[in-house]
């Protein structure tokens, strides 16, 4: 994959789960990342009017560098048009329709070398999920959406209450035991942490809470570390680590390695250059203390 490949994130979930709210949040809180957001319904996009720089019916350009593209002419047509302008964005977000299978949309990024598959994020409405899963018209598609997620955001907790969250979590776990499951309000969410963008993965040796809902831990090693040890460590990371990214110097590898984790899914790719030191950032929904099987030489950066 070329270094310029743009991360590609799919936001799925059934109607009313909060997808559009999350999209609005992403567009308003972009903090320098130029997101290209593909939406089904411009009318529902609710950014500050002052943020809209131009609007031609198909594309809305925002003053913060983000663009918002309509899927009205069909998904393929809209994506082909977007990819003509690869220089104009850093990261693609697709808001899937309520009955779409987000994993099928992610296939685009698995195929296109100009795109880098990031995460399938599925929102689940805690209040209605049981009814949705039992619905004769849409039950199967709602289940398939949950099954394909890397990260599941359980929403509408204010309406549903703690018991409903517990029930939703259980229902979701039955369908998908690997995804990171978070409770969240999509209107008040740390965009960088969820999407692994901007300063969240800056490899800056800082340890700071990204948001009340998230905990970040930065690890570093001054000398190359053992590949086998690192793999053991990564495999043992707790499920609440929703994202991780590292630039790793391994003992037996000339080139550095890029390690990425989304939900429980991890991949390692070789970098084109050698690196001397290791920097790893982990983002979790619980405090990242007491990590087991830490490779020799890898230590938490100073708070």
């Amino acid at each position, binding site marked *: 994959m070329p270094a310029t490949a743009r991360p590609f994130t799919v936001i799925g979930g059934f109607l009313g789960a909060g997808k559009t709210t999350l999209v609005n949040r992403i567009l308003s809180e972009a903090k320098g990342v130029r997101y290209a957001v593909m939406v089904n319904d411009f009318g529902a996009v609710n950014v500050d009017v002052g943020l809209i720089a131009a609007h031609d019916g198909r594309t809305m350009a925002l003053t913060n560098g983000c663009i918002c593209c309509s899927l009205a002419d*069909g998904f393929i047509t809209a994506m*082909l048009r977007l990819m003509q302008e690869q220089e104009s964005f850093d990261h693609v977000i697709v808001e899937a329709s309520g009955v779409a299978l987000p994993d099928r949309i992610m*296939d685009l990024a698995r195929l296109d*070398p100009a795109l880098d598959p990031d995460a399938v994020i599925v929102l689940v409405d805690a209040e209605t999920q049981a009814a949705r899963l039992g619905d004769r*018209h849409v039950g199967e598609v709602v289940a398939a959406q949950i099954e394909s997620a890397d990260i599941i955001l359980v929403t509408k907790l204010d309406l549903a209450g703690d018991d409903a969250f517990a029930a939703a979590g259980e229902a979701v776990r039955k369908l998908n035991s690997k995804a990171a499951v978070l409770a969240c309000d999509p209107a008040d969410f740390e965009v960088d942490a969820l999407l692994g963008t901007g300063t969240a993965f800056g490899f800056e040796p800082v340890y700071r809470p990204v948001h009340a809902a998230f905990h970040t831990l930065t690890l570093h090693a001054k000398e190359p570390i053992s590949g086998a040890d690192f793999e053991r460590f990564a495999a043992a990371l707790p499920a609440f680590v929703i994202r991780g990214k590292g630039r790793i110097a391994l003992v037996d590898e000339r080139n550095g390695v890029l390690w990425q984790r989304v939900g429980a899914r991890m991949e390692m790719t070789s970098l084109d250059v050698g690196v001397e030191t290791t920097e790893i950032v982990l983002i979790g929904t619980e405090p990242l203390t007491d990590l087991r099987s830490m490779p020799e030489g890898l230590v938490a950066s100073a708070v």
Partner: protein
Amino acid sequence: MAEKIRVLRARKIVTMNGYKPEGTHVALRDGRILGVGGAEMLKAFGPAELDESFADKVLLPGFVEGHCHAKEGGMWNFPYVGFLPRYDPDGKLWPAADSMDLVVDRLREASETMEDPDATLYAWGFDPIYFDGARMALGDIDQVSDSRPVVVMHSNGHVINVNSVVLERAGIGRETNVHGVIKDAAGLPTGELAETAAKYMAFRITGDPFFAGIRANDLTRFAQSATNCGVTTATDLFATFSDESLAAYRDATSAPDYPLRVMPAMNVIDRPPEEGITALRAAMKYNTDKLIFGLCKVMTDGSIQGMSARIKWPGYHNGAPNGVWNLAPEQLTEIVAAYHAAGAHLHMHVNGDEASELMLDAIEAALVAAPRPDHRHTLQHCQMADEAQFRRMKALGLCVNLFANHIYYWGDQHRDITMGPDRAARMDACATAERLGVPFAIHSDAPVTPLAPLFTAWCAVNRLTASGQVLGPQERISIDSALHAITLGAAYTIGMDHLVGSIAPGKYADFAVLEEDPREVAPEALRDVPVWGTIVGGVSQQAAGRDG
């Protein structure tokens, strides 16, 4: 001063009106019908000029195609490789490509006529469902060219086959592991790409000419096809209301003597209803006698042969999983309610019986919330509806436009693969619609099947499949009923029965000009009745001379 009166004399005029079913003379003025009857028409309205051009022809009301697409005109920019023979707008016959070798030959011939060796060859109309399970493989399509990209669109419009040139440039190979990249037993891609992502990647290489918006030239060619088969009013039943498309409709239909009345139906599932209703009303302000906006299209499910229609228990005969919704059922229901309340005229694509049930529920709820007499909302395709659903259509005042051509084109496959013998026998149930009093039309869905109402009528009358078997003989209808369905019946479903669909005073002077009276031929010969051409608003145009 009013235009001079002209009286056409014909061998016979079949009016489809109730008070005077037949005549020999029809008086015209200002593009409209003054009167129809016998020789007395010559003097009935004052001095008239007698036009004997059609003295040996049979005139019927211009045929009305209630469900087709103007892309029928644009598809012929590309070679056709369908299993069944087909005429293009110029009257050229594209013979059956009914073996894989013939498909490859046709593609190779097309490739050899292309000047630019690097240009992509696109073709359409391919349907492997006829090949007893055989699919197109790289070994087939790579015989066409090893230098240029080749893209073959299947007749369902959803699946493509590409050659190795496309696969290599798209980086699709053995290690590719995504849905829709079909592989052979050895794990190698076959070139068949079935899902959005796989098609996207191919079109990233070649560009996508199939889904570009409508162009004025498409509409010109579409009208040419219409003339060839006697059609004078046709829908374009899935229209994108982009500025370019709207301009294309206006440009094409405002050409002098454009020989077709076009009714684009706005796709309503791509934007919020409030916005769509505003766009629809804006477009309607520019309605002319040849371009009539007002219809709306609701896409609910997919297709039966593509296994993407939503089917009730017991589901697909071959055990395929249930199909897909284009939008969530509750969104579709909300859209129906909003457009109904705004006074729009809805045409709802429902292939499977779960989809038709959902729209029956949606219309019922919309009518309870906002009662409206004579709404003419129409279930389109509606191939699987059972008698109970037809009774609900009657009760709710719905019309239905049945996909009669499917019986011939995919009837064998529906019986053997998709629906099984019993449900296949009641597909596209014209006789049930007639018996239960549901206003009905029949259609081609061109370019999915050919635009040719007499062929569509033949399908409804005979219910013969491509292999020559009768599918559901009880659902056959009479020739008179089928002719009604392609004239006044179809006009009723699109709210045009006061202007077209029969030959009567005040209506547009639109005629199908035939060489024989279709009511007098044997039922199995209905599709062979020759079409001379059409008259639209009193202006005649001859069909393109046909091969063979």
